[in-house]
């Protein structure tokens, strides 16, 4: 077990998460990708702190904070997803384009 190994694992998880974020159309799928990426980052934090320590327990605390934030984020995100589903009967990210530029309204007078 080496630092490189841990980092590589984090990288793999992150890449998989990224893939999920990009490929999924389901909002929950995207959320899954995000969780994977967060965990990848957590692994990196801990790995660095474990192999090249400068301050003993700081990474654990960071990870705990991240987990807490992830919980909050997941709660909000799932709430939004549910709300969207109720309103639009869909959780497809491609359908969520309300903020796209239409070009027409912007023209003068």
């Amino acid at each position, binding site marked *: 077990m080496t630092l490189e190994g841990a980092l590589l*694992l984090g990288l793999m998880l992150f890449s998989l998460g990224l893939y999920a974020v990009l490929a999924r159309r*389901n909002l929950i799928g995207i959320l899954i990708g995000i969780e994977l990426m967060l965990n990848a980052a957590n692994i990196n934090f801990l790995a660095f702190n474990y192999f090249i320590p400068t301050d003993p327990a700081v990474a654990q605390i960071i990870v705990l904070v991240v987990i807490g934030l992830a919980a909050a984020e997941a709660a909000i995100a799932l709430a939004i997803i549910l709300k969207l589903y109720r309103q639009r009967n869909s959780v497809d990210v491609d359908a969520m384009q309300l903020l796209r530029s239409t070009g027409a309204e912007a023209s003068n007078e």
Partner: protein
Amino acid sequence: MSLHFAIAAVVSLVGALLAVTQANILHAVFGLAIALVGVAGVFFTLDSPFVAIMEVLIYVGGIAVTMIFAVMLSSVSNPKERESAGRRLLAALVAVAFFVGGALVIAHADFGPGKKLPPSAWGLEQVGRDLLGRFNLAFETLSIVLLLAIVGAIVIVRKESAMPANADEEAS
């Protein structure tokens, strides 16, 4: 130790693969749960049992379960629909590019010699002291954030009938 790590790594990777490739979103959430258990194992091998436990408790026990509820509440229409091949290919390309870049950096980076700390420095006691001592601000902030998130989530998903009349008319 290395073996433990390898097992945990394999578990988490397999879980993650499942999580991103399964067409059925419910299966994907299960994959995520597996991956998270694997990650918790990795944490365990990194001398952080408390964090590992928390990972399992919060992620697997909390977030993943919530997701399952969300999936069940929302994706009833066509949960098994697959994304187009082109889309997946492009996403894979980006992900692979990212992986290659990261791998290159990791492979050639010089992290210098590591030196271990005594296990007591990594202990739960140390974490507890720091959390309520040095990093008290982060701790308290986090609690406020969680509180707000709970309240916010409740407000957001409240039934339409409970909302002011005009707010939804416009949106629908």
